[in-house]
């Protein structure tokens, strides 16, 4: 098998098994003597049946669990994936090296890497490494140094202030130098209109330039905001006029409106991640790039 064919199998492993929990795909992709190891689990999982137990346990504990592949590299029969895992512990207990952890209600986002060995189209081994300390701290099982209620409040205020500067100064006023002040150098920006995340400060400056070139009068208004721990979530609306090429669509001078939700992650007073969800199809329709075929006349 080529390394490209092996990568395709590895993507199916993440999309169909880890994220969609399609257990029948485990029978298709895993070798009979498949072995799965990860440091947060006390014992390895053996064979397709053992692996089904792990996937079922994970989705039971974190019904919204997502493993987003950031990078994939391959040579010979090995594929290595670098991923970001996230989820909210709203379900059953999490089986772990610290015992079974009952529902915490908390969200986690961590980094990990997995070493997959794939032979003749079957996955023989999955050796994972993840931020073991990070996940258990974020779930509140292990204390972090900066955990105390009064500090937490001011910490959340600081996070809100950063988010406010992001919308007002960066997005609405186009002050690109503020990006360097409020965002971490390893910043990641995920938006459904782009196939790959925007990474780093310079790439983010380019993104904002492109957005403001398309809509020079763009204005974000925050409709609702929640801050908790290291996260801030914002529901926003925007208005603007389509005066420059955006996402390949030449200027139409159409007024546009969009709405969406951004989730910010903040570490040490810097924004490290923004996940965007917006009405991207509506935006494309308003720019005239997609016809309004689905419009129902009441």
């Amino acid at each position, binding site marked *: 098998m080529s390394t490209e064919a092996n990568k395709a199998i590895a993507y199916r492993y993440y999309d169909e098994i880890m994220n969609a929990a399609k257990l029948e795909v485990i029978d298709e992709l895993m070798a009979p003597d498949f072995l799965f190891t990860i440091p947060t689990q006390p014992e390895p999982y053996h064979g397709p049946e053992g692996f089904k137990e792990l996937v079922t346990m994970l989705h039971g504990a974190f019904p919204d669990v997502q493993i987003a592949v950031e990078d994939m590299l391959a*040579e010979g029969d*090995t594929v290595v994936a670098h991923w970001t895992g996230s989820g909210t512990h709203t379900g059953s207990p999490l089986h772990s090296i610290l015992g079974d952890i009952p529902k915490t209600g908390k969200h986690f986002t961590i980094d990990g890497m997995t070493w997959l060995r794939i032979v003749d189209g079957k996955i023989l081994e999955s050796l994972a*490494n993840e931020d073991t*300390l990070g996940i258990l701290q974020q779930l509140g099982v292990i204390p972090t140094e900066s955990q105390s209620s009064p500090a937490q409040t001011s910490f959340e205020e600081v996070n809100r202030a950063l988010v406010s500067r992001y919308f007002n100064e960066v997005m609405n006023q186009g002050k690109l130098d503020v990006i360097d002040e409020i965002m971490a*150098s*390893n910043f990641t920006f995920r938006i459904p209109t782009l196939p790959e995340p925007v990474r780093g400060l310079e790439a983010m400056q380019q993104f904002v330039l492109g957005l403001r070139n398309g809509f020079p009068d763009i204005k974000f208004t925050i409709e609702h905001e929640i801050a908790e721990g290291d996260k801030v979530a914002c529901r926003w609306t925007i208005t603007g006029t389509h005066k420059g090429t955006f996402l390949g669509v030449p200027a139409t001078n159409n007024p546009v409106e969009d709405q969406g939700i951004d989730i910010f992650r903040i570490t040490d007073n810097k924004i490290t991640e923004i996940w965007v969800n917006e009405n991207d199809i509506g935006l494309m329709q308003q720019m005239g790039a997609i016809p309004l075929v689905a419009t129902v006349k009441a």
Partner: protein
Amino acid sequence: MSVAENKIIVRNFWQEIWNKANFDAADDLVAPNFMLYLPANPEPLQGSEGLKQWANTVYTAFPDMHYQIEDEIAEGNTVVTRWKFSGTHKGAFQVIPPSGKQVTMMGISIFRIADSKITEDRAAEDTLGLLQQIGAIPSPGQPQNH
């Protein structure tokens, strides 16, 4: 640069800096804009100075530190190493006093290389397991005092 040449650069990185504690080798091996991403650090460590500082932190705590390369692959401008760290906790590890414990830790590092210099090292490693082995975090499944 070929992937074979990139693999040699990364093996030198492990051998010189981490196994021989020859920290000055960092000046030749990494680019000025080098970034080291570790799960335990919220911000990346930068440049050869950042790398030397971190290597010295680990060396102070584990003077016999050793990274065994278990496996490696390379593609394009990247090299990935799967490694096993071992060492004896004879000195303070940041704020954690020496425990005298022998530890091992598994990890994976992804390196990016440009013009024969390492520009990025991103690691996934079992920090929790390490802290449990040196007694900084209790392990409920194991006896506490031996």
